[in-house]
C-alpha cells in the first residue's frame, strides 16, 4: 500500500525540509519512497509544496498525489487549496496559528496544531516545521519518532549540535501535542 502526503505552505516555512526528512527516514527504514518538490516558476510566487510517497513493498508508480492520504498545511492558502483533494477518510494537519478558517470537508480528520505559538514557547520559529512534522507523524503513525530522528540527523548532517537539538525538541513537542 502506498501512502501519499502533501506538505504545503509559504516559502520560509521549511515545507520542503519536512518532506525531505520524512522521505529520508522512510528510506532508512528500507521502504520505497519518492519525494517530489514544487520547482521553478511555481516557487516564485512564494508558495512551496512537496509530495512524499511511501510504500513498504510495492514500487511507486507516480510520485504525484492527485488524491493524497494526508496533507500538512502551514498557511491558509494551502489549506484552502488542498482540502478538496484529500482522500475521504484522510487526515489534514493544520497550523492553526496561521489558519483561522475551517475546512469544509467533513469526511476527513482535521488535526489543528498551533505551531507558531508552540514555536514561540520554544523561542524559535525555525522549529515550526518540526513541530508540525512531529505532530503529523505521531497522529498518523507514518513513521516512528526514532526513525524521524534518524532522518533528521542525516539531513542536518554537518549542522551544529544545538540546531539538531532544537529541531529534535520541536518534533517532540509536536508529537506530545497530539
Amino acid at each position, binding site marked *: 500500500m502506498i501512502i501519499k502526503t502533501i506538505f504545503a505552505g509559504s516559502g520560509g516555512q521549511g515545507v520542503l525540509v519536512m518532506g525531505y526528512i520524512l522521505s*529520508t527516514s522512510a528510506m532508512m527504514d528500507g521502504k520505497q519512497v519518492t*519525494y517530489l518538490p514544487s520547482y*521553478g*516558476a511555481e516557487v516564485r510566487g512564494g508558495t512551496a509544496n512537496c509530495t512524499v510517497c511511501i510504500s513498504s513493498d510495492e514500487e*511507486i*508508480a*507516480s*510520485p504525484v498525489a492527485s488524491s493524497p492520504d494526508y496533507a500538512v498545511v502551514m498557511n491558509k492558502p494551502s489549506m484552502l487549496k488542498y482540502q478538496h483533494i484529500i482522500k475521504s477518510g484522510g487526515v489534514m494537519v493544520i497550523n492553526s496559528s496561521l489558519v483561522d478558517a475551517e475546512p469544509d470537508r467533513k469526511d476527513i480528520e482535521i488535526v489543528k496544531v498551533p505551531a507558531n505559538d508552540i514555536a514561540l514557547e520554544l523561542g524559535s520559529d525555525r522549529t515550526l516545521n518540526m513541530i508540525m512534522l512531529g505532530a503529523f507523524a505521531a497522529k498518523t503513525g507514518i513513521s516512528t519518532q526514532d526513525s524521524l530522528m534518524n532522518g533528521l540527523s542525516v539531513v542536518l548532517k554537518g549542522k551544529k549540535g544545538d540546531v539538531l537539538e532544537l529541531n529534535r525538541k520541536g518534533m517532540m513537542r509536536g508529537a506530545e501535542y497530539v
Partner: protein
Amino acid sequence: MNEKVLMSGNHIIGEAAVRAGCRFYAGYPITPQNELTEYMASAMSRLGDGTFIQAESEIAAINMVIGASMAGCRAMTSSSSPGISLKQEGISFLSAMELPAVIVNCMRGGPGLGNIAPSQGDYFQATRGGGHGDYRNIVLAPGSGQEIADLTAKAFEYADKYRTPVMILQDGMMGQMMEPVIFPDPIDPTKLPPKPWTLDGADGRPSRVIKSLLLDPLVEEALNWKLFERYEEISRAIQASETYMTSDADLAVIAYGTAARIAKGAVKRARQAGLKVGLFRPITLWPFPKDSLLEINKQIKNFLVFEMSTGQMVEDVRLSLEGAGRVHFYGRPGGPVSTPHEIEGEIRKIYEIRA
C-alpha cells in the same frame, strides 16, 4: 556496497557522471535541469581536476564539449528542450567527427517557450536527429532514480566505445523527483582506455586533424555508410527494454520514462481487476528495442502506446510491427501528469473494443 542515498534525478546524473570519470561539463541554466548544472559546478570545484564552465549559451556549451572531447576528456552538457534545439548543429558535428559526448535533455512542455512541466515532446528530435545529415544518437530513457545512475554510467561507456554522442532523455519530473539510489565506485579517469585519436599536440607522432569537412562527395558518402554500419552494430548490441507481466497478456501498454511509471501503476490496477495486461518499456529509445517488442508480439497483438506527447514513439512501434498488431495511442502533451487510474481507464476502453 555503497550506501543508499536519497537524491533528485538531476543530482543523480551529476554524481553518476563524476563517478564515470566525467571531468568536463559546460552548460547553461534552464529549468527544470538547473540542479544538474549547479551540481556539476560544486562537484568540479570539489574535485579540483575537473572543469565546470557556465557557458554564455547552449551553443557555446556544446562547442566547448566538442573541444573537450577532441582533447580526450569525458565531457557532458545538459539542457532542456529549447536549449537542446540550439545544440542541434553541435550534435550533428559531434556525430560527424565521431566524438563521444553525453547530452542530457530534461524535457519540458513545448513547443516554443512552453512550460517547465514534464513532457515527452522531444522524442523525434532525440531519435531522428534534430540536426542536419544522416546520423543517429544513442538515446537512453531512465525510469527510476537508480536507473538514472546506471544509464548515466552506460552513457559514458557507450559514447567512448562507439565514438558517438549519447543522449539521456528524461523530463522535469524525473529530474526533480528524489528517490533512493546506490552509486557504483568512482572510476579514475586517468585509468580509462587511451583514445588514439585525440588532439594533445603532435609530439612523437604525425599531426592529426579532427574534422567533418569532406569536400569530395564520395569521401563524404563513405563516412555516411561507415556511420550507418556502426549504427547497425549499435542496434544489434544495446537494445534495452523492460517487460512486465507480458507473458500471458492480451494487451501491452508501451511507454517510457515518467509515462512508463504511471503505466505500470495502471497495469497493476488492471491486473487486480483481472485484465490480462502487460507493460513494455523501452529503455533505449534509439536503438528502439524492436527485437524484444517483436518477441512479445508473438503473444500480444494489441498495443496501447502512452506518451506525454501527441504521438511520436508510436511511429517506432508501428515501424517495428509493420502491421502485425493493432496499435492504439493515448497522449497527454504539454505537461499534465496522468494518474494510473486514468490510464487504467484507457486500457479498459481498448479491452472493451476487443471483447
